[in-house]
């Protein structure tokens, strides 16, 4: 068949157009506005060089938001990947219990993150929440899940993980199914025990799934907005505020769209760096057979 370049171009053009309009242009505009003092509503603004970035790197609120974002990222990445791999291996059997459990873990994934956050807000409510009502029935004092900022951040991270674990589980189960059963049989014949089979065969061969899931979970953690917005709004006093939440606050409440763009640009660079480093590490550990 003759290769037709025009035909190829026409096929990919809509995709490139959409990507340009919705990704490249907004990114370019964000970069541009990050060097301005635009308030988000005026027609006029000035170029102010690196002033937004200088202020950002001396802003204690930014470092707190970065810390919160990183804590959420670390907890969710661990739960998604460690628990995800464990559940995938444990549930990779053909019986009704495993099928039901996989479905049960997957169901929250189809729910909107906002809905999930509201549901859990009512469950964890200090006064009259589901958990505290049940505890009261058995005579246990109510638990304040919002007692310290760290308690709250950990609670939010667990809620985020509950919401998203199903997707990661599906990817891990799919990866497990690509491992040829002959390899396991050969290892068994050679006398490898369960641990050896898992660490020497299953885990290395799951590396492509781990690569994808790590990138997805790290990027998702660093971009976290919706759950925190609904559950705490970033409070008290900004103690649970993530970078994206801070950016939206600066843009829409403080009329500092230029500064907000600088925050998002820094986050973008952070995600790119982390993803590239992480990709290079996990890619090296992938094995071919």
């Amino acid at each position: 068949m003759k290769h037709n370049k025009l035909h190829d171009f026409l096929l990919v053009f809509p995709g490139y157009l959409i990507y340009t309009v919705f990704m490249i242009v907004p990114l370019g505009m964000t970069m541009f506005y990050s060097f301005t003092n635009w308030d988000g509503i005026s027609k006029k603004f000035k170029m102010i060089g690196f002033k937004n970035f200088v202020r950002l790197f001396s802003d204690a609120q930014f470092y707190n938001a970065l810390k919160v974002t990183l804590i959420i990222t670390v907890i969710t990445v661990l739960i998604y990947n460690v628990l995800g791999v464990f559940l995938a291996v444990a549930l990779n059997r053909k019986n009704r219990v495993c099928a039901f459990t996989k479905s049960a873990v997957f169901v929250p994934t189809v729910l909107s993150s906002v809905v999930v956050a509201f549901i859990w807000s009512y469950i964890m409510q200090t006064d009259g929440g589901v958990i505290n009502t049940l505890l009261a029935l058995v005579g246990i004092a109510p638990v304040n899940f919002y007692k310290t900022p760290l308690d709250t951040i950990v609670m939010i991270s667990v809620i985020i993980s509950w919401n998203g674990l199903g997707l990661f589980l599906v990817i891990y189960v799919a990866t497990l199914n690509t491992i040829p059963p002959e390899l396991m049989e050969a290892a068994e014949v050679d006398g490898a025990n369960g641990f050896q089979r898992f660490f020497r065969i299953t885990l290395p061969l799951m590396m492509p799934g781990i690569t994808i899931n790590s990138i997805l979970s790290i990027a998702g953690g660093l971009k976290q907005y919706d759950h925190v917005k609904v559950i705490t709004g970033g409070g008290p006093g900004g103690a649970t505020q993530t970078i994206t939440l801070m950016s939206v606050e600066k843009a829409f409440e403080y009329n500092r769209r230029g500064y907000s763009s600088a925050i998002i640009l820094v986050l973008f660079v952070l995600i790119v760096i982390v993803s590239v480093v992480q990709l290079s590490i996990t890619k090296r550990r992938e094995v071919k057979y």
Partner: protein
Amino acid sequence: MKKFLSLILCVLLICGIATAAFAEETKIVFCVNIQPQLPLEFWQSIADRYMAANPDVKVEIIGNPSSNVTLPQYEKDLLATDQFPDIMVMQNPADFVPSGALLAFDDGDLDYLADPEVGKIGGKQYVANYKKQIIGVFYNKDMFAANGIEVPTTYQALIDACDKLLEAGIQPVSLGLKDGWPQGQLANMFAGTDLLAKDTHWGAKRNADEVKFNNPDLVKAMQKYQTICTKYCGDNITGITYTQMLEQFFNGNAAMLPIGSWVNAEVEKGLQDFEVGWFPIPGDEDANVVSVFVNEGLSIGANTKYPEVCKDFIHFFFTDKELYGEFLHSEQLFSTTKDTVEYEMIPLRKDMEEQIASMTEVEGFESMTGDDAFLPGLKDYFTNKMTQNIAIGADVEAELDAFDAEWEISNEAIEDAA
């Protein structure tokens, strides 16, 4: 002949369609503040009444699409995307005036208001203020009586009352930080009593950088606020929402509720099994200062094609007494018009009016208006950051220093823009 007549009919039909298509309809967009007490239907009824009286005008109602997006945020989005409404409910004009988004009213446009001067920015009025709300302390009269507590008229008496309630195993105050704003009302009360009562235009001086947030009066006010939050609001202040605050108080699980007069709408429901009273937050010597919110009203977009229609609509809102009375009744509000507007008031609302008649009125600290208003963003900083941090025990002076630093950033942004 038939062909000729048909041709004429066709020409007439086309002309008719063309005239209808090109005739400019007078349509104004009204952006409203949708709340439980003022649902979309209420605002639509205003539009319907106006359209019935003015058949040539069409009024379209829009409102913030989600409770996660505040009205000012939504209005900023509309402005940034060239969809700014013709008329809107305006809560913080200081955020919009610098960008030239609002139309200034002419002298005499708002003659029907009791005080058309309130909230002027740079000598111009941008908001037709439609309500006055006061903030103070709702209390459980039965609980006070059962514990032999009189209504406190000094700060020390308030602390004594709290201690007495604690000893009796009762949570003295219902307050929560989870929604971000309710705790700010108590901070506003103390700032009003200890700072603004001495200088009602302190805000303008702060904006001129003649004074600082970190000053002895505000430090004292915030320390009092911190004492109440950390000692008398229970162990779960960080996890309590506004709705839960109301539940705590109206279910008889807390003795006092420091909040705005809009809670009269809840009192009116009569779900509580005790009598509710109200008092202003007391100062060191007496209880003679009340903080008042006059920061909300109706504004006109600077780019409206129909400024006169918009002014007429606003005039209609205020002068249709049935309509305006219905609006005031929604939250048992205080009228802002020259003429008295009657509506069904609950006894507590009447009692408040009698109490504040002899008091000094100061503007709510976070929502000062006109030239006294906080610079853009600082209101959010006060409620969502500073008062929350202080409520959980942060160092008051350090927090006020941080507030001053935030002022510097906001001021610099304004100077850069200029």
